[in-house]
């Protein structure tokens, strides 16, 4: 048992936050986007984070995803305390443990769907061939087996988002962090994305999804409500 685990990141917890606060400084004024937030996302959980605009949802995801450092407090990924790691070590954590899904997808525009997914596998020490095979499997998993050679601009928004999910899944991350993944999508695309989430959740994938969409929240196993940077309501114990 490591010290980190001893300090609160129990086994079986994919992502944990301990007393996390995040301050933004803007023109002499300090905005507390997160206030002493504690959180444990158990492995295999499907958590929906909701709350009014500006309550700190995106900030929470970026802090949990090591993209931003908390002002106070600690973040644990897979039991490892990541606060205080160097930039390149954080990149390694992201590469191995975290998959991101964004509202605006952020696919590489000159790479095909297959290549976009394979790029995330480049760092795993797989052969080129294995990378492509795995990428193809993932695209089939998200229902895009027939679109693998399309460039992002040749795909619909929903399809692009599914490519992004496949990419996020590529490295078999401990957790997938999604920030309003259906924010730009219509109803049917949203339904497809939800189906994918449910499928991977059923397969044991940990998911943290920030959403405004009631259907996404309903589909989730757990819900957490943020208000002004603090948890006001949570179905996690």
């Amino acid at each position: 048992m490591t010290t980190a685990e001893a300090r609160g990141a129990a086994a079986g917890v994919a992502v944990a936050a301990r007393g996390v606060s995040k301050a933004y400084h803007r023109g002499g004024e300090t905005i507390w986007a997160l206030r002493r937030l504690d959180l444990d996302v158990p492995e295999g959980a499907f958590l929906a984070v909701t709350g009014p605009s500006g309550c700190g949802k995106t900030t929470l995801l970026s802090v949990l995803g090591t993209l931003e450092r908390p002002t106070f407090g600690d973040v644990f990924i897979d039991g490892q305390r990541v606060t205080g790691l160097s930039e390149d070590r954080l990149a390694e954590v992201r590469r191995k443990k975290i998959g991101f899904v964004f509202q605006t997808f952020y696919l590489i525009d000159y790479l095909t769907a297959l290549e976009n997914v394979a790029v995330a596998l480049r760092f795993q020490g797989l052969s080129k061939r294995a990378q492509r095979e795995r990428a193809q499997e993932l695209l089939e998993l998200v229902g895009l087996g027939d679109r693998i050679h399309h460039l992002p601009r040749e795909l619909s928004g929903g399809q692009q988002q599914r490519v992004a999910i496949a990419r996020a899944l590529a490295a078999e991350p401990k957790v997938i962090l999604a920030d309003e993944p259906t924010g730009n999508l219509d109803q049917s695309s949203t339904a497809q994305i939800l189906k994918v989430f449910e499928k991977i959740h059923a397969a044991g994938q940990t998911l943290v999804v920030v959403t405004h969409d009631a259907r996404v929240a309903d589909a989730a196993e757990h819900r957490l409500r943020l208000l002004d940077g603090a948890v006001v309501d949570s179905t996690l114990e």
Partner: protein
Amino acid sequence: MLWDLGLLHVRRQRQRHMLAVMSAAVAMIMLLVSTVLSQGTVAWVAGAERAFLGGDILVLPQVLAVPGMHPRADAQWRWTSWSWDEPGPLAFFMPWIFTQGAVVQPGGSAQPESAAQPGGAPLKALEAEIARQANVRAIYPYYAMPALWTVNGRTVRVWLHARVPELDAASGWNRYLSAGRPLSAAADFTALVDGYRHRLESDAAKAYGYDRYNGRWLVAPDGDPTIVDWPVPPLGSDIRLQVPRAGTAGFDFTRLEDVTLTVRGLYQLEDGIYDWTTHGVTNQGYTPGIYRDLKCSPCMWTKEPAVWSTTNIEVSLATLRAVAAKVGAHLEPQALLVQVKDPASLHRTVDALRDALPATVLSVPEMAQEHALDFIPSVATPHDDLSLLHRVGMDPPPLDAPPPAWMRSTLLGLGLAMTALLFFANVFVLLYTRQKEFATFRVLGARRSQLLSLVAAEVFAVSFAGAVLGGLVMLPMTSYQVGTAHGWTAVFTQLAYVMELGFVVSLASATAGVLFGVIVVRRSPWGVLKSD
């Protein structure tokens, strides 16, 4: 590493990279123009490279194995520097544009030897043009080339003139040069000092009190024997010359090739009576006490003050060719001597030539008038069927000084600054339009160094493509510079150099890309992604 993605990006988005390639090409052109014009870099790098390689990189014998010589403007083309023995009973025609240290070969490019005999394709065309004139009987090529001759520690600039067999046979020149006897084919060497036939001081001269000059050249201009303080190379001995390589600014006297000529045909005068025509008067046995053993027909001396500025050595055409080959020069006739059929209609012929050719064509009388040299017509008169034409193209410009240093360094500075700016702009555009992509890679877990490899590969690919393109565009200019400085086989060496320059420049901009890239990839990826 992600470098292959950089190349993939270039491949997938060609239109987008076209602009970058073009701007790199323009940058390369600027680099070449400024460095070549201000420093002559391509020529000296090609020279250094040849020295390093011990030869040229590639030679295609059927195309470029014959090194090119570009006879070009120099003192020889200036009317006042002409040795007056050449006028003889001949017309001659200069096919070159007379600019100091500039283009002289018609068409501006070397011709294979086969096409260049005599004179290469452009000269052939010129000959054809002249030959179309009704009154032209024959056209003779005339060859010359400069050299240095060190005698008694004193270096003299000489001109090697070719003895062209058909010219010898068909013209009064030969008679003049050889005192009426055809020179033997074995006579590979004669010497003229300042355009005048001179002789080894003979026993006969000794008898007249010139023995103290024994073993020296005796030159007799206008009745005054002049002693040239050089030893006479005995027959069968070697005379060592240094021949300059053909360079961009005339023959390059800073790079000399040693050439040895064997003295086999020193001009020997016979004792006896001679005809000596000067100033329209044919003298027989003029001042026999001194000149008894000089025999010239026709012959003239003059007190032209410039006569000591040049010295001529006459060799056979075959010898001159061998010398030219040795210095990597392509021997081309430098003048065409035109013989007319009917001297009465000389002026009409001259006018016709003036119309047909973009040049100043002078007949003998006109030349005489222009230069107040009354002996020229008198020389020509005995051979009425011949006239002298002289083309100077443009007036020879004054010996132009090289551009001042400040001008050259300004050109270089501006060129380098523009080059750097263009390459920098490329790097800048590439980095700043793709920050989101880089941030995405960072979110996916790419290390910064991996992103830098992508940037480096992409900048390098684009810069190299552009640099090679620019190098190709500038090929005529750089080839000309290298070809004229080192011979045309060196053009391949220079091609390699342009590639190398492109490589170095691309490497530099890739390095710049990495340096700026460090700043760009340092930005928090989340900050970048959130900022839109």
